[in-house]
């Protein structure tokens, strides 16, 4: 019995729209110099060389470039002097149009087109992976990370200079444990005493209420400066991007991108989403490495902040 993928996939949106664009530009003998896809901004940049000989310029009034999939003309350089041209492009009937008479005498032009890519198209051309669970070591949590180009048909169809930049892998880094181990004993006692006192209130047993509040008072005198607000402030501060990033390492070719705090419970962050990025291209179609969370150092930092709160 066959195993694996049996559904037919059309070539990606990015490749097919680029191919149809090039077909329409046929008269100008387009030569694609490079194609860059930016994963984070979901945009593409195509650099191509167009031939517009004097004959064409005389024959046509306007130079037209089809506006496929949101492609627009970003820059045009004179292919001989390499000067940037100041051309007015107008969108007419799904085409970008400029006045042929305004072109200089050169025959070759470098044109940069910009386009947009849908999320679906991106997920068809690259795959990003990380594990559900890290490998735990006494001082670190390690996550494997991998990303790879899934569909190289753009390369097949157009040109070898394809790069997909800032391909992002989102890793959910768990921080529950460093949190619960770094809460100092006195604070923990205080919280537990308060919890018991609140429970006693619910029971309406006067003797029990009295006894638990005495216990709570005693615990409070041990941790005078504690307040739930300070506690949650510390919790929020240590998982802010600028602090949390100090406790992360990532292997090359990956680089740390953003850090987003995911507050799942009501006051305590349970996990942090860390984004790592790598550029992929023909030479490096896949990237691999590890993201390391230095949890012991993170826990030490938390402990010292919580201790300050107690004293």
């Amino acid at each position, binding site marked *: 019995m066959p195993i694996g993928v049996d559904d037919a996939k059309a070539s990606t949106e990015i490749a097919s729209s680029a191919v149809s664009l090039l077909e329409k530009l046929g008269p100008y003998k387009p030569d694609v110099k490079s194609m860059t896809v930016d994963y984070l901004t979901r945009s593409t940049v195509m650099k191509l060389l167009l031939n517009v000989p004097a004959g064409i310029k005389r024959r046509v009034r306007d130079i037209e470039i089809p506006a496929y999939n949101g492609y627009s003309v970003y820059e045009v350089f004179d292919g001989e002097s390499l000067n940037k041209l100041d051309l007015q492009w107008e969108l007419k009937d799904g085409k970008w149009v400029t006045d042929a008479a305004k072109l200089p005498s050169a025959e070759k032009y470098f044109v940069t087109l910009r386009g947009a890519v849908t999320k679906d198209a991106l997920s068809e051309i690259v795959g990003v992976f990380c594990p559900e669970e890290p490998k735990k070591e006494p001082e670190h949590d390690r996550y494997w990370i991998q990303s790879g180009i899934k569909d190289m048909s753009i390369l097949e169809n157009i040109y070898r200079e394809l790069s997909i930049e800032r391909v992002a892998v989102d890793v959910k880094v768990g921080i529950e444990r460093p949190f619960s181990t770094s809460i100092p004993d006195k604070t923990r006692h205080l919280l537990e005493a308060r919890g018991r006192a609140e429970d006693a209130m619910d029971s309406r047993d006067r003797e029990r209420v009295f006894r638990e509040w005495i216990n709570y008072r005693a615990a409070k005198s041990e941790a005078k400066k504690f307040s739930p607000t300070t506690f*949650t402030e510390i919790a929020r501060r240590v998982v802010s991007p600028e602090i949390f990033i100090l406790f992360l390492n990532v292997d090359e070719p990956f680089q740390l991108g953003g850090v987003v705090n995911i507050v799942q419970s*009501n006051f305590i962050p349970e996990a942090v989403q860390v984004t790592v990025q790598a550029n992929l291209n023909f030479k490096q179609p896949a990237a691999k490495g590890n993201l390391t969370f230095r949890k012991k150092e993170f826990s030490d930092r938390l402990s010292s902040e919580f201790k300050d709160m107690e004293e």
Partner: protein
Amino acid sequence: MVKLISAYVASWALPNETFPVHLNWEPSSARMSELRLEFPSYFSAVDFFNVKQPFVLLEDKVIPADRLQTQNYFGVLLRCNKVFDDIMVEQPIRIEFVYDNGEIISQELVTRIVRPKLQVTKAPSKVTILDKSKRNDLFRFEVTHTGLGKASTRVRIDAGGSMVSHTDSLYFQILNDLARDKSSLIEELQSKTPDDLMIDPAEVERVSKIVFERLQNSDVPPDMAEVREILTDLLRNEEAKQRLRVLIQSRVKVLMIASILYFLDRNPHEDIELAYGKIKTIFQAEVKDLNFSVEYRDSIGNQYESVGVHVEIEDKRTNKDKFFEVPVNLDWKSELLEFE
């Protein structure tokens, strides 16, 4: 002949978790005819990288070279469909480059299928309940976590009585308060708590806003239909809405403490998450035995065989009809799984 730039397989995966494999090599003039894959029969190939679509991997697991989009890279996404009893099982994956001239170059990779595993490592075999017994010390179990991955656990106690979870969700608590006599509750709350824990008013405002929004969106557990009705009534009336706001605000402080405690209770140990916090069991009638068991799943939902013990109980209390609440103490231990 083939010059590999990188050969990669993810080091570990849980059962049913997909993981990537890739090979990247220098393009060369030698003509490759096919790639042959070898992996265990209980693995499946979920997706392919750099392979012309549509593509179906047949049982011989061969990828003809002309199916590759470019002659320098191949990737496959695999998944292990089997759950093992062992906490870590090494799994070989082999990829062979077969050339036109008959030469075969083989690349071996190894991944590990891992899992969390719980064991009850300490438990009493027999417990005698006397009138003077200290309830807190009667039942104590030690559960040890080995392997890799968080275990989301649910503890079950079967002793002919009922089991009570100590920590309900926080919002659930508020809703319960609301379901009780509303006006007397508000008065009670306003006069109740000594104000010695300083709370930033902005924090109070922020939290009450969240609570209020959740209530307004009818974010209420389905078994609390009655409360939902009360709330809907309250939210229709501006004055009642204001009272509700006061109530929520006055609960914020309690809520914050409960939240921190709840968090600590739920995460008693590395890699353990309890479905609820501390557990008590209530003995209502004479019981002869107690079954303690722990059900658990990993983070992608694989359910493992539950672990448990049977404890014989000798109830020597003079009045056995009396309601008797006993906390069940759980100690958690864990051993880290080591591999490179």
